[in-house]
């Protein structure tokens, strides 16, 4: 019984997600601004409130209240006074803490940059701000974005909102842009910026149930993004739906003179259109089905495959033969560039500087060993080893060659006669691991496992998007069930009432609260439905009980009947010959009456007083009376028998 209910729930959530996808929050919010149901200032305030409320999840490391408020005032001015509305006016964002923001601490979650306050803005941020976005805060990450769980941060780990109820163990948010993903999934902001080097945007998006886009390498400027691997880094976008993510992408994409690796062509904004899936060729790379992939993920993969097939998309199995080596190659290239990029942190111009003053070399050594965590230091060591002149060809050059082969794999799949338009793969190999399980593994293994499906796209520079499909974690689900089901009916009513009013006002999906109200509405609607179902089930049960009772009653009746039939058949006369008996009786009676008549006629002539009537006659009269009595008794009995027979027939028919 329970299992059935869970599947129902999953489908409901899937539906919920789909309904959300159809709404474009940015547009809805702007509509509300125009209708003055909300204003940029009030909305930003709500988001800030939400950020504070969810502080236990540790998604935002620096809440930028002043900045957000100033920006919201600007937006409000543009909205209502200047009437010069920008595409992202009053849209709240969070930015991963490895993007430089002028006069706002940018820490990379590292001791090294704990007090680093940039004097310039990253291109991505300045473009967003130019378009009117309001910065709620800087979001948490793994130190220098080296990780896939947002667990290695000087601010502590970020907790996944799903299934979190404040107890000792909880699920990781994924990483390294975990803070951004949690901020979006909890409604702290409409969209967030992450960075994607080996899957750092898509991974937390998948684990937190939001959309995560990794644009083509060079489409979005990296200027101001503190680098992890320059040749793979891309600013990523996290949002609750594809439309919002697209709006943000359209804002931040395009060539940048400050980043020589950006694509020089002018960027044409992306318009989302309905597409005819029957023209779309979708590839399923066989190599992605790998060891360690959980059954649920495989099922979901299959589920989407079926979904697309149903929509008449052309599904093909394709091969990317170098997938399995990709993660090792990625690891080498990553460490080499890390070693190089981290060389600038010497404590002289910026960053942590210890008091070591014996010599410059000592100062370097102590600043760097205090400033970097183990993960960063070990990658620097490994990278420097790979880059040594004697190892260069053995590792780095080979890795570069393999990288070319991996990129060629994609080229081959996307070009040529048997090409496909997109590839369908899972983002992660499993759902969000529990924190305790996750941190028991080495960072290298964490990444090797979490990045398996995501990093090849970075190696090839191609775009990728992670879209939430369904919640596959039954435990989270059951927790949710409990928490929702145990809501007292009155509370449910209240929520639904508020939500209905909200809908009536047309302010659905506006701010974190409205969003949650909208969700509550949806939920309460769903709950109502469910309640109906339950009620019906209850009725059904009652009916069943009734039926059962009837059945039992009938059974009893039947038994009784059978026993009576038995007893009857043992009796003499039994119902079968009773008529004959009656006939005989009647004949007897008739014969007796005849003789009585003859006698009376005989004796009337005689006129003999009764007292003188012969004794024999008197006895004959008495016998007659008793016979009559007996006859009525038998008649009754025959009636009874007849009734039971009818009843039995009726029952049999019913049966």
């Amino acid at each position: 019984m329970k299992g059935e209910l869970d599947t129902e729930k999953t489908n409901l959530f899937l539906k919920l997600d789909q309904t959300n996808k159809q709404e474009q929050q940015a547009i809805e919010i702007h509509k509300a601004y125009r209708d003055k149901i909300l204003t940029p200032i009030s909305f930003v305030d709500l988001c800030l409130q939400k950020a504070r409320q969810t502080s236990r999840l540790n998604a935002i490391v620096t809440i930028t209240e002043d900045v957000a408020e100033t920006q919201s005032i600007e937006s409000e001015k543009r909205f209502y006074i200047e009437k010069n509305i920008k595409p992202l006016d009053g849209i709240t964002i969070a930015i991963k803490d490895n993007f430089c923001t002028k006069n706002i601490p940018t820490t990379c979650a590292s001791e090294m940059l704990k007090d680093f306050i940039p004097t310039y803005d990253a291109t991505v941020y300045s473009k967003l701000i130019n378009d009117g976005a309001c910065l709620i805060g800087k979001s948490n990450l793994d130190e220098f974005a080296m990780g896939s769980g947002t667990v290695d941060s000087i601010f502590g780990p970020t907790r996944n909102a799903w299934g979190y109820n404040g107890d000792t163990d909880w699920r990781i948010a994924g990483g390294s842009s975990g803070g951004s993903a949690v901020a979006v999934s909890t409604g702290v902001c409409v969209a967030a910026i992450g960075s994607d080097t080996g899957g750092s945007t898509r991974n937390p998006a998948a684990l937190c149930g939001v959309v995560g886009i990794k644009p083509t390498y060079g489409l979005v400027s990296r200027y101001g993004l503190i680098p992890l691997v320059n040749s793979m880094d891309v600013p990523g976008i996290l949002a609750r739906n594809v439309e919002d993510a697209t709006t943000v992408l359209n804002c931040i994409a395009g060539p940048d003179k400050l980043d020589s690796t950006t694509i020089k062509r002018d960027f044409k904004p992306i318009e989302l259109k309905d597409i005819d899936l029957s023209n779309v060729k979708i590839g399923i790379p066989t190599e992605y089905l790998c060891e360690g992939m959980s059954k649920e993920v495989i099922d979901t993969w299959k589920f989407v495959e079926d979904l697309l097939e149903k929509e008449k998309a052309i599904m093909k199995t394709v091969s990317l033969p170098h997938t399995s080596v990709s993660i090792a190659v990625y690891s080498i290239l990553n460490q080499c560039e890390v070693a190089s990029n981290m060389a600038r942190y010497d404590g002289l111009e910026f960053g942590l500087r210890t008091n070591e003053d014996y010599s410059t070399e000592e100062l370097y050594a102590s600043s760097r060993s205090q400033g970097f965590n183990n993960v960063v230091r070990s990658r620097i060591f490994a990278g420097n080893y790979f880059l040594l002149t004697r190892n260069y060809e053995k590792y780095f050059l080979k890795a570069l060659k393999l990288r070319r082969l991996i990129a060629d794999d994609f080229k081959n799949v996307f070009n040529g006669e048997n090409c496909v338009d997109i590839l369908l793969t899972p983002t992660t190999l499993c759902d969000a691991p529990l924190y305790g399980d996750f941190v028991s593994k080495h960072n290298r293994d964490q990444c090797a496992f979490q990045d398996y499906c995501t990093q090849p796209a970075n190696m090839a520079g191609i775009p990728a998007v992670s879209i939430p499909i369904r919640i596959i974690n039954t435990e989270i689900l059951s927790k949710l069930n409990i928490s929702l089901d145990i809501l007292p009916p009155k509370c449910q009513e209240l929520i639904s009432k508020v939500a209905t009013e909200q809908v009536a006002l047309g302010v659905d999906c506006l701010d974190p609260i409205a969003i949650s109200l909208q969700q509550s509405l949806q939920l309460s609607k769903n709950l109502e439905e469910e309640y109906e179902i339950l009620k019906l089930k209850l009725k059904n049960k009652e009916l069943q009980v009734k039926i059962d009772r009837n059945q039992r009653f009938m059974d009893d009746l039947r038994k009784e009947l059978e026993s009576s039939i038995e007893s009857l058949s043992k009796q003499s006369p039994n119902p079968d010959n009773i008529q004959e008996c009656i006939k005989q009786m009647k004949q007897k009676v008739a014969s007796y009456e005849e003789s009585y008549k003859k006698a009376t006629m005989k004796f009337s002539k005689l006129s003999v007083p009764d007292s003188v009537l012969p004794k024999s006659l008197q006895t004959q009269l008495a016998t007659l009376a008793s016979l009559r009595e007996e006859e009525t008794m038998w008649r009754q009995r025959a009636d009874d028998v007849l009734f039971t027979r009818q009843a039995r027939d009726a029952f049999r028919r019913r049966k």
Partner: protein
Amino acid sequence: MKYIYVTKPVIKWNTCLNYVKRNHSTNVNTKWQSVVGLEVHAQLNTESKLFSGAQNTFGGLVNNCVSLFDAAIPGTLPVLNRKCVELGVITALALSCKVNEVSSFDRKHYFYADLPAGYQITQQRAPLASDGVIHFQVFTPGIHKKPYKKSSKIKQIQLEQDSGKSLHDSELKRSLVDLNRAGAPLIELVFEPDLEASYFYISNSQRNISLNPLDINIDGEEAAALVKELVLIVQRLGACSGRMEEGALRVDANVSLRKFGEPLSTRTEIKNIGSIRGVAGAVRHEIERQRTILDNGGHIINETRSWDATNKVTIAMRDKEVVQDYRYMPEPNLPPLRVNLHTKEDTQDVISVPLIKDTIPELPEDSRRKLIEEYDLREISAIQLVNQPALLHYFYQLVSDVARNPTKVANLLLNDLLTVLNKRKVDVEHCTITVNQMKELTDALLNKQINLDIYRKLLDELFDRPIDFSVLEIIKEKGWTLESDETVIEQKCKEVLDNNPKLVKKYKDGKVKMLNSLLGILAKTTSNKMDMAVATKKMEELLKK
């Protein structure tokens, strides 16, 4: 203005001077061949730095020409300065290099306080240009009797970043860092080790033939001449100021010695030589040092040395044990640099090499040929004129508009002007005499308005006058005009003859040389104002009467 403080001097200077006294061994029968190869860093003459918009200037306020990128602030990215590529390409073309259609940038890693990023962006694997050659004249007055031609092959020319400057305060035991130079554009020219000279060192029972002092200088002077020619070329091209005293052009010399016919042996590298004479001195000293070690059965260690210009010795710089591994890696933030080799189509991102080729000016070698062939100058004059761009400029200006005798003009410039400048300790480049003044002055001399003596006096006088002050005015003011009126001269001559009857008598007795004495007296009494050519004629006439 702010220095970035580093706690202690970064370099632990090796104070032990490995200076070995020149010790001419006479009992070793060896024949050494020295091999010298140069690496030259030339700062490109651009407004802004190689990868950032910060001002590229010498002598700016400390740490005042530093962009975020130059200080290696996280998140900043390099953007290649187009002008640097243009200057690099034009230099490469002037040195007949093959400009590479695609070149790329690499990171060279080492930790140093004045290298904020921990790596230098250079072009190690695929340089901007390769396979060139430089032809130059070797001629040092006092060492060489006559000029000779020499050439050196260029392995590659690469674009790279300069580092900042560390200033070591030994008293307070700290270093200060100035990043004004950090990220300035450089081209590194790597020459093949093909400056070779042989030293014969024969000892036999009869006599010891020691080294010819001229031979000792061969490599040093050739290296110096190469650098001089390079300076002239980059100056002509406007690619580099060539001011070695400002560090705009710095020379590293790789020096090794080998037995004749054997492969190259261990070399030492003398870093950052800051003058042309320094190049000659450092190479010479290093050859001497190495030879002494080898003659005494020692080994040369592969090490980096510096040139101490005051004591004229090379000094070991870094710890010998530490072999630097630069861990080269391709620079991922810069796409490969492409140039258009074939057409004159020039875009923002792709520079047309043929278009640049058209802008190459006359090069020193062309100038010398022109001076010899068209102006009929002696080879030495031509070399000297070309070596001093300011003088060459005067020369061209003086011989171009009116027909002035080129040889005379050249001699005036090379002898008289230089003498005056040397006396006043003024660099030729800073000579304030204008072309106009020079023309007036030269014309006055050639038209015999003044004589050579006055000419020199005037040159000197001009330095104390306002810029472009009229020469004729000074002549008038000082009354320095040459007397060429024959009657006046005749009158003066008569006076001299009348006053010196003894000398006249001697002359008439056959001592013709007395004419000179008489002319001398004439010059003296008339303060050098007579046209001596006319005076000589008149004097002779008068004496013969």
